[in-house]
């Protein structure tokens, strides 16, 4: 298990000053963050830019040392016993960096594998298996500079798995990828956790990705953890409004009045708009589901229903809500 306890990271940043007299200021990138990574589970770290997600990942992967607090990986301290920790972790970042472009995919994996002490037949079969896993076997001997963005990202995944890490950190892994390739990668990430028992920490700006993949989500804002739960519980716990959209062919004055009363009774609000097709779209917003009373009301007014759908609050709404609340 990877345990992060009360971790804080402070950077000393040089401020403008003269040649002889330089001024420094301290910037707290991460403040008192604690969480756990468990085999077979994917956890999400969400927050707006500069929240401290990447700094947290880099501390967990031993690239940065925390100013205070502890990170242990299967009992090893990530600072004092980093040699043991490094063998168990790896990181995959989005974008096209972190690879040698003039080398082929196979050569890249061979080089990075040798950094982990792999060699000979064991390394060769590991490379073949990973290339097959990420669908790059046919392009294995092509220089990376000729790869598409999606191929480079898949090679990044293979590189991140070269040491068969127990703990994998994915920092925006689908950044800039086309939808079908991103979907394929998400499927692969899920498999890594479910079928291979990897503990995965994911940061992403694509909220639906986090909702789809993560068992638990940690929301981080200005370096502090502000919420932690399952994606579904997080959206429920904040009591955000559900929007109920219904399209009807005609709107009488009495129906309009009854819709207004219904919204008030459930502590919500009502919006009405005429559509281009000369029908009416009624939107009821509230913390309680008003589908049943709405349908009863429309039946009582003998109003046919052309379309009906419910819009649940998303994780994105949760983050925006929290950012607004903390900014206020």
């Amino acid at each position, binding site marked *: 298990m990877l345990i992060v306890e009360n971790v804080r990271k402070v*950077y*000393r940043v040089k401020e403008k000053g003269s040649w002889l007299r330089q001024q420094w200021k301290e910037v707290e990138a991460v403040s008192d963050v604690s969480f756990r990574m468990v085999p077979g589970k994917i956890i999400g770290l969400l927050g707006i830019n500069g929240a401290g997600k990447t*700094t947290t990942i*880099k501390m967990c*992967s*031993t*690239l*940065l*040392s925390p100013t205070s607090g502890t990170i242990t990986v299967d009992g090893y301290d990530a600072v004092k016993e980093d*040699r*043991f920790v*490094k*063998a168990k*972790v*790896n*990181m995959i*970042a989005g974008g096209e*960096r*972190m*690879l*040698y*472009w*003039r*080398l082929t995919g196979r*050569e890249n994996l*061979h*080089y*990075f*594998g*040798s*950094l*982990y*002490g*792999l*060699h*000979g037949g064991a*390394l060769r079969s590991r490379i073949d298996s990973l290339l097959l896993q990420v669908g790059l076997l046919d392009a294995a001997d092509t220089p990376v500079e000729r790869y598409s963005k999606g191929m480079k990202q898949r090679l990044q995944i293979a*590189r991140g798995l070269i*040491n068969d890490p127990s703990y994998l950190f994915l920092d925006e892994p689908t950044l800039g990828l086309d939808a079908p390739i991103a979907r394929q990668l998400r499927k692969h990430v899920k498999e890594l956790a479910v079928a291979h028992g990897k503990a995965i920490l994911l940061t992403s700006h694509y909220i639906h990705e986090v909702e789809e993949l993560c068992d638990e989500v940690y929301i981080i804002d200005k370096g502090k953890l502000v919420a932690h739960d399952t994606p579904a519980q997080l959206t429920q716990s904040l009591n955000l409004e559900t929007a109920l959209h219904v399209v009807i062919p005609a709107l009488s004055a009495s129906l309009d009045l009854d819709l207004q009363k219904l919204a008030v009774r459930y502590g919500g609000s009502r919006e009405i708009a005429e559509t281009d097709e000369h029908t009416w779209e009624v939107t009821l917003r509230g913390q309680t589901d008003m589908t049943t009373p709405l349908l009863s009301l429309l039946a009582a007014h003998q109003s046919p229903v052309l379309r009906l759908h419910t819009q649940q609050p998303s994780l994105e709404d949760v983050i925006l809500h929290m950012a607004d609340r903390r900014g206020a």
Partner: protein
Amino acid sequence: MKQLTALLWAEIQKEHRHSFHSKMVYFSLLIWPAIMFVTAYYSFAPFRTGADSPLARFLSAEQLPLFLLTGYLGYIFFWCLVQSAWQMSFERQAGTMEMIFISPVNRLAFLYGRSLSSLVEGVWLFFCFTLLALLFVGGMHPSGWWAIPLAFFVLLVSAIVWGGFLSVLFLFSRDASFLYTVLDEPMLIFSGVRLPPLAFPLWAKAISFCFPLTYALQLVRGLLMEGAPLSALAPELALLASVLLLLVLVTVVLLKKAEKHMKETGNMVMY
């Protein structure tokens, strides 16, 4: 040991594919030092180099081509490593340095492996050229058949240790490229590549003994030009070994400090 060999081989392959990908690179690695050597040789032409010249106290006119050839051969060994260390900025920009430091690879093995691969790729062509030139020029007085491989070994080890030291300096800061200016030209001037350090004034002699190339060249010239027996060269060999050992110790200490510094400041990704 197998792991270390595998790492060295992987490093050599990576450097070969990454930095020595074109025939033109090898061509430039031959032509540029050869031009430097020819320029240096003909720079002496307008001056007196005979028995009554100031240089004659330290070097005879007949020895000048050999002196310059061995000097430039040694310089190219060390220069390749300055270049290689400078290339660390590429690793920073490409983000590959993070991927190296996230792994448990032995840092010292990585640094020296990197130096070795750059060196072998960078000098083999000029080394062959120099050997042919030495045979063509004549006048060599090697201490024995073993003098040439020993001279090569001395240059190889000295340059690798120097390269490891420089690479660590480049790990500290993205702005370490100024070292290229600070170290490269003074090394050429003061290490006895073109002039014997003994001919220098005292202040210049002091600078010359800061560069391991000075000690390495003394030894190489003793082996190839003066035909000195190994026993006579033992003090110089011991001096070079001490300097290199000191440099390795400084490299180890600085390497630990550099990694700690990178982990504290996060400057590994700054470029």
